[in-house]
């Protein structure tokens, strides 16, 4: 199956923007493919390798290194829960546990309905609003169990297009 024209155009665009150094576009191309496929499947990796003139091995070493590129299937919303020291001070991992139990998934797991993936994240730079998590490029501040319930309910209802990996 070929990619939609819009995705091809986007990828061509980011590569053209850095024409002298194609490799610089590696992460942007993978982001674009991830937005399309939902995660970086093998087909996406092969497409990126052809588009960038890089080997799949080189791209694999990037895709498996970065924490906002997903090489395995993820849910519609990826929940990056900050577990660094300031957030830890306020919840000592209970926020992360609560999310896993509430959604019935292990760390890194995806819910049966494909809506949510829960991942621990290094400090997301929102320490003055600790404890915090990042979903779909948006910070959720000063979390409590009730607030998490409300956020999950809101996202289940929401029709917004997920801005994956941003």
């Amino acid at each position: 199956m070929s990619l939609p024209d819009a995705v091809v155009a986007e990828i061509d665009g980011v590569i053209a923007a850095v024409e002298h150094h194609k490799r610089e576009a590696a992460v942007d191309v993978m982001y674009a493919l991830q937005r399309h496929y939902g995660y970086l499947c093998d087909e996406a990796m092969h497409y990126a390798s052809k588009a960038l003139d890089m080997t799949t091995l080189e791209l694999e070493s990037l895709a498996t290194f970065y924490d906002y590129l997903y090489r395995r299937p993820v849910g519609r919303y990826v929940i990056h829960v900050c577990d660094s020291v300031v957030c830890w001070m306020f919840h000592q991992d209970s926020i992360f546990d609560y999310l896993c139990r509430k959604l019935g998934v292990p760390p890194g797991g995806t819910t049966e309905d494909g809506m949510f993936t829960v991942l621990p994240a290094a400090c997301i730079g929102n320490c003055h609003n600790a404890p915090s998590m990042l979903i779909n490029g948006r910070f959720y501040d000063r979390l409590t169990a009730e607030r998490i319930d409300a956020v999950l309910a809101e996202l289940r209802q929401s029709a917004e297009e997920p801005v994956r990996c941003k």
Partner: protein
Amino acid sequence: MQVETPLVLLKNRHLGRPATFEEYRAGGGYEALIATVGKRTPAEVLQLVLDADLRGRGGAGFPAGKKWQGIPAGYVGPRYVVVNTDEMEPGTFKDRILVNTDPHLVIEGIILCAYAVQATEGVCFIRPSYESDAVLIEEQSQVARDHGLLGDNILGSGFSFDIHVHRSAGRYICGEASAQIKAISGLRPNPRKGGPRTSVKGLWDCPTIVNNLETLANLPGIVRNGPDWFKSLARSAGGSGTKLFSVSGRISRPGCYELPIGTPLREILDHAGGMPPGRVLKAVIPGGASTPFMPDKYLDLEMDFEPMKRAGQRFGTASIMVFDQNTCLVGATLNLMEFFTRESCGWCTPCREGLPYVRHLLRLIEGGQGEEEHIGMIKDMAQAMRSAYCAFAPGAAEPLLSLFEYFEPEVREHLRQKRCPFGNPPPAMRGKACGTRPPTFGPTPCPEDQCPI
């Protein structure tokens, strides 16, 4: 007593939104650039920065001017400026506040730096959780371009420079200069050891200046008002300028505060509303996760590079994380080691092997299974971690060693009581354990039935 200090970097914060080009211009913005490009020589700008003694705000505190001087004289070819907005140091969020307050201050700073080193291309390296920063920089640099302040032939002077945003995909190690350059080049970002400095051989093997975003945001003020003004902003004798202090943790009003360099910790905490009712300060980490714990005896120490260094402390990124009397510092250190272990790039042995070893011993101590000998083992390994390739593992050793330096009785209390005296549950020995389903493993499924591969 609190003295109102002039805001330099955050003077447009009262708007509550990013300042527009016109608002920035009305406050004297871009005047430094207009007075510089084509009117001063690059060497004059460099001299201003050297005289102002502007030190890097990203953690290491290396003088910016000296870094710029590292570019080989007479080098012909492209030169790059990389603006480090990775900011993944736990506790740090100043750059996000700064960009979202005054994007044009940042852009003007980048152009001034580029002019001083005669760079042709700038790369803003921005972490994924700061997508709003990336969008703002892209939009506002277009505005600057439309006004002829960026791009080809800036203000008709013949000097050309343009910036673009490089979106990162995460990982703490990308904040290290050589790793960041590799990340931009589409390589696995392992820091490099030895070899020429990045100012000699950096991005695409050309001279590259990697500076923290806040460092560059100081340039418009220095160029417009002069080095003496910049030095007069500081309160400590040898210091210069103001600093964005990110205060977080157990404090009444956590947030980002711009205060003169050299302001004592006590006053900074007062600005942030002091300790919440019923809580007593035990320690702070003064400059992000790679700096030692600072016990309350240093409350009146001037927060500046040199005075803190003399006291055995590190200024770092000036992100102050406040721990109160009810927080277990062994648990906090264990959390930091979990962070460092996970974020290690795994390239060199002291870091890849040393961190999990230390983490295991701290888990034992925090869980009540600690032995006397573990303390010595941790200290030995912390020394061994100093021989790693980059500053990552030595940075991790800083809070670790300071835990034993200042809070050894607290560690020994764990050994004596055979549990955490603060009542924390024993940590899971093999990472996060929770949930109801085991993780699934197997080949990566392909979404298409007709997969060509």
